[in-house]
């Protein structure tokens, strides 16, 4: 299978440093275009792996929606746009030990868009950090599964998020810590696109670039929708890639729902020595259920019983 990655022209393929990765499946082939180096990489990710991830992501979506339905609060739209990214990370990219969540050399992942805790919890259960049945307590009184993740309570959670704009500063600090300790772990952070309206992100962006944090990967869940409306209509964030480039980052764009692309790009991230990496993941909010897709209402709409049943049936029957 061939994967395309778009990179800034000024960097040539020979600059790229490949990080060791669980599924070490990239074979770089550079192709010049007018404005871009289009890097074609052949993935050795087996159909089998891709199938496993697809099934896991389907379960994550189903559980997350059930959890939101149960709690009568939640953010299913963003859960669904992020589900494939989370599954690709936890089942295909991050070096982790679910049975030893505080293993010092683990890769770090920060869910900056902490309102999508349902998808995170479902993914953590899928990855084996805790038992699936815990998911049934989502937001129940005294549950460990608060509406936003709490690192003091939930195995596998690295940061207490919820207020937007905390994740990238935290991740920048984690990446600095790895450098100070000469440790090999990488730090990944997932933000929303609306979230990047918070200035704290740009403070951290400047800092990470100055310190050349090539152990830091920012993934932007670019679903084009924030809480109340389309991002474009509230505060436009495009051109997204230009912003990060002008702040000193290496940028790549991927289809955030294509496991081949996700595994290849996330697996070989950070992409360049001496620079932090930003991966703009183009996604669809509500992805996976026809009537939820690309509809701002589903940012925090709680499904009715009927909507839940319809959605589950759609997900159950999904081919792709």
């Amino acid at each position, binding site marked *: 299978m061939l994967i395309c990655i778009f990179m800034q022209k000024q960097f040539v393929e020979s600059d790229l440093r490949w990080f060791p990765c669980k599924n070490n499946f990239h074979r770089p082939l550079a192709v010049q275009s007018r404005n871009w180096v289009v890097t074609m990489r052949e993935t050795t990710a087996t159909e089998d792996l891709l199938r496993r991830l697809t099934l896991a992501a389907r379960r994550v979506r189903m559980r997350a929606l059930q959890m939101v339905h149960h709690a009568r609060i939640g953010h299913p739209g963003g859960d669904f746009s992020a589900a494939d990214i989370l599954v690709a990370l936890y089942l295909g990219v991050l070096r982790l030990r679910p049975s030893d969540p505080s293993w010092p050399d683990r890769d770090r992942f920060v869910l900056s868009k902490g309102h999508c805790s349902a998808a995170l919890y479902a993914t953590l259960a899928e990855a084996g950090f805790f038992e699936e049945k815990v998911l049934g307590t989502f937001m129940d*009184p005294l549950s460990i599964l608060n*509406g936003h993740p709490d690192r003091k309570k939930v195995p596998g959670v690295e940061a207490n998020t919820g207020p937007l*704009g905390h994740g990238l500063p935290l991740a920048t600090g984690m990446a600095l810590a790895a450098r100070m300790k000469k440790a090999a772990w990488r730090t990944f952070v997932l933000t929303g696109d*609306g979230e990047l309206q918070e*200035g704290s992100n740009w403070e951290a962006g400047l800092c990470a670039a100055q310190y050349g944090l090539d152990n830091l990967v920012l993934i932007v869940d670019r679903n084009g929708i*924030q*809480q109340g409306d389309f991002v474009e209509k509230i505060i436009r964030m495009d051109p997204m890639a230009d912003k990060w480039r002008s702040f000193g980052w290496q940028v790549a764009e991927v289809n955030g729902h294509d496991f081949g692309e996700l595994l290849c790009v996330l697996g070989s991230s950070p992409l360049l020595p001496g620079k932090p990496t930003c991966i703009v993941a183009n996604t669809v909010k509500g992805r996976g259920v026809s009537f939820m897709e690309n509809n701002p209402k589903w940012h925090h709409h709680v499904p009715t019983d009927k909507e839940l049943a319809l959605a589950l049936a759609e997900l159950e029957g999904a081919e792709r």
Partner: protein
Amino acid sequence: MSESMSSATETFDCRDIFAATLEEMAAEDQRICAVVNDSVGSTKLGGFRRRFPERFVNVGIAEQNMVGASAGLASGGMIPFCCGASCFLTARAMEQVKVDLGYAQNNVKLCGMSSGLAYGELGPTHHSIEDLAWTRVIPNLSVVVPADPVETRSALQWARDNDGPVFLRLSRMPVPRLFPDDHRFIPGQAPVLRDGGDLTIFANGVLVFRALEAAVRLGRRGILARVINMSSITPLDREAVLRAARETGAILTVEEASIYGGLGGAVCEIVAEEHPVRVRRMGVPGVFAPTGSEAFLLEHFGLTAEGIESAAADLVRQRRAP
């Protein structure tokens, strides 16, 4: 949880009267505008945006700019109502609130929505229980916590007419009406809702009706509680506090906020300065809340009619002891 009053009475989400009043005022006064941080739905300002699109600013998810730009709007002659979840509005823009509002005295009305424990199971990041302690220490900033729809409306109208920065701490949990239509919010005046001589309960916001319920229950046990609506935190009605100290000899403060530095703190400061009596503070006792809905957490922290009743009874017992 106590049901006696709420079951008998219609309740209101004060955000509705907030939104309606703001629209009404904007129709009358061209200077009124609204500033939100991607919070059109949660502030219920969809109607405002439809009717006055040119006076509606959504700054996106950016609270520092929300408060700073509101100050700029005010300095340019507008009267901005700057509306967002109280937890982010205050904490994320604390320095803008201090400098651009308190110090520079720009005529901005901060509307902290869904304050206290309103966001329940969304957790401590979304609870706004520090906001009273945080804002009370900022000079020139009025701090108001309305208790019902009538007071919410009146406080908004007062904020419009008062040239200076105001923090309106609004809530989401449905509350019954406590005041007659012609009730007027007056800064620094704390109305007595029920009189009594055994102790005084100072409450504000969504807990006022629970305090009243507690007083009813206490009455049945022969304890006469004075209940005072302390919606005006800055300025504070010093006289009401000192009268309570002198006349009832014991004070209970009840707030959907931390017990450090807020209403309870303010009352303790006055009492200790001029007429020392025993004060017990009810609220969130210096911890981050566990998972649970607002109703669950209020109960968890004893902020129910029963909880208030029993704390009040204890206090009176202590006082009567040697």
